[in-house]
């Protein structure tokens, strides 16, 4: 590959390349985490939930508020840090899950029979509302989230940096992806989800409580946005009321790239995006990376209209 050749030419050679792959992997994992929420909701009711990114944004705002309120950034020992991160993950995920669920009940549920564009436009509307809530909550300026996890290099003095926050990110994403896969493949709820996604009428005829399944999907999707929010606040560290838009866009792209409705697909899509961004930035030009990502998306969709993993796994969610 061209990028590999270029890497060989560059100054620190393979180390730089490994580092860039690592950067891409972590950023991609983050995108994947948001993408999972998209893919779950899309898989079950075919709705591009434009508000998902903004839900995630509200999650980051709650994270910052909690950190400031409880002074979590002053935590000294590794144990207190671990406990506060875990507590944050749970609280923010609950918040986002409940919010997402309520939005579904209040706004999307009455539109289940409406033309397909109606819930889509409602989702855009909800996205505006969320953004406005964020604007009123924290104001228009970008904010910095204090670092909870140390930036110390786990690999000691090596030229390659791998920090504890990278590690936490990768572990959480891997755990969530496997958890979701197990949930969808082997549990009763997962089976109902797959059934509803295939054919809601038939599912209902088979005795599945369709609305309950959809509700749980929104709960899970919201929870994922909450996890993503906490991780994002730790890893990227700058939040603002508009971050939902671009992260949502990339996440949605990741979901479609991998084959929307497909859980490993969303993760794969996220990682592809992270890698393209990272390597593009390193070996092409930073300013072209967005064009490269979307260019790849267009090409993949033209040649594989249902995404990278879309065909192999026929069942949705």
């Amino acid at each position: 590959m061209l990028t590999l050749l270029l890497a060989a030419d560059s100054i620190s050679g393979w180390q730089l390349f490994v580092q860039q792959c690592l950067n891409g992997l972590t950023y991609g994992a983050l995108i994947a985490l948001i993408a999972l929420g998209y893919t779950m909701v899309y898989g079950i009711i075919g709705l591009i939930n434009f508000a998902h990114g903004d839900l995630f944004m509200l999650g980051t705002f709650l994270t910052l508020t909690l950190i400031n309120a409880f002074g979590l950034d002053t935590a000294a020992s590794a144990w207190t840090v671990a406990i506060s991160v875990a507590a944050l993950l749970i609280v923010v995920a609950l918040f986002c899950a409940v919010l997402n669920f309520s939005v579904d009940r209040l706004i999307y549920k009455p539109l289940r029979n409406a033309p397909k564009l109606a819930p889509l436009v409602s989702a855009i509307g909800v996205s505006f509302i969320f953004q406005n809530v964020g604007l009123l909550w924290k104001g228009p300026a970008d904010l910095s989230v204090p670092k909870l996890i140390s930036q110390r290099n786990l690999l000691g003095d090596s030229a390659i940096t791998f920090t504890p926050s990278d590690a936490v990110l990768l572990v959480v994403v891997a755990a969530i992806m496997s958890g979701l896969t197990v949930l969808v493949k082997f549990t009763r709820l997962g089976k109902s989800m797959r059934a509803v996604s295939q054919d809601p009428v038939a599912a209902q005829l088979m005795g599945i409580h369709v609305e309950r399944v959809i509700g749980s999907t929104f709960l899970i999707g919201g929870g994922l946005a909450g996890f993503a929010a906490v991780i994002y606040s730790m890893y990227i560290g700058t939040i603002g009321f508009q971050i939902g838009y671009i992260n949502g866009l990339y996440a949605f792209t990741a979901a479609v790239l991998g084959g929307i409705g497909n859980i490993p697909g969303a993760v794969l899509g996220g990682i592809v995006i992270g890698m393209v961004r990272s390597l593009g930035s390193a070996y092409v030009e930073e300013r072209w990376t967005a064009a490269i990502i979307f260019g790849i998306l267009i090409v993949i969709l033209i040649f594989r209209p249902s995404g990278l993993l879309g065909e192999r796994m026929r069942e949705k969610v």
Partner: protein
Amino acid sequence: MANPRMKAIVSYPPAIMQNLSRRNITGYLLVGLFFAGALPCLSGCGESTGQSKPEPATSVAVSTDNAATSGIIRIVSSLPRTGSAKLQTDTMVNGIKLALDEAAYKVGDFSLELEDRDDATAATGDWTPDAEGDNARQAANDPDVMVYIGPYNSGAAKVSMPILNRAGLLMISPANTAVGLTKPGLGEPDEPAIYRPTGKKNYARVVPADDLQGTCAAEWAKDMGIKTVYILDDNSFYGKGIAEMFRQRCNELEIDVLGHDSIDTKAQEFRSKMTSIKALKPDLLYYGGTTQTKGGQICKDMVAAGLKCKLMVPDGCMENAFIQAAGPENANERVYVTFGGVPPENQTGRGKEFVERYKKRFGFMPEAYAIYSYEATNAALEAIRKAGKKDRAAIIEAAFAIKDFPGALGNWSFDENGDTTLHKLSGNIVRSGKFEFVRLLGDGNQQKPMGDQKK
């Protein structure tokens, strides 16, 4: 027909309309032409009965001889009032208000009004050409408007300048630093003539332009002993311009420029870019951009990627929002900021008095640009005072004739391009979460604008 609503929409058109509608296009056009032709004639007649047509706004203002010497004069400010520049522009508008307050909202027999317009939209969080264009056109069309203070962003100035130039309205920017707006030969080949379609000048600014700032930044870097530098910019009119000036001066000073790239300001993180830069081991990273274009994230990701060099940014980052976004722990002792003037805390003489009056009036410290909007307003008031009449052309003339104006920034004049003769810049560093003045840059000493100077 099952649906009553549909019936309502269909309705029952009268016969003539039905006939027209058969010949779809022609009918439509005919009716349009009818109205376009007949009705305007009526109003045209009505209009001609009135004395001197009041319609074109400019003709009111430009008609020189019988211009009013009392009445209302409106000052329009156009700044991004939503989005992340709001913290800055709030204090800028306060600066304008302070100046107007001190004049008791009066110049001669004119009473002054301020119209605080927003050139940003909530949806974008940044200035938009539509909003800036609207502001400019509305100001141009309002014969009471004599001065336009703004805009904040140089890109926005490119939209409003031609409009206001045609309207012959004085424009004083407190914050635009892009070179091409005033100076021939430094920006694009046909700048600034393309912003002055009438060929006359109506745009002035009270901040030094980027040619000074970019070159001074490079000189400062040289003085700090920087040997190698990597340059990033935000791909904007302002950021790219200043980065380019910086690069040229670096080449002249034989500072090794290791690379120059533009970032995608929509991206959320730049760790990969920082990793690549780290491999090049520069002594300094220069970022030509603003807080709104991810200046804070750049600083943060430098730390995350383990890039240990200094970061130098221009005045677009000289606001507390930048430190907030970067996180003080990341910015401290790392970020060097050049600024076309001296930060509020380090003002001396009249500048210090301004800061104190400001604090007394509003209860908190101004951001860096408040003093410039204060100065711009005072310059505008001076121009109105000198012109002595409500006449746009005379006010422009008076503004460009301002010489040795004793303002809060010192004694300064507008040169023939509309640039300030104040060439005093400052170098600042972020220390314990605040901007701290380090030294003066450029030829600040030549002008001797203030009595005492901190060296």
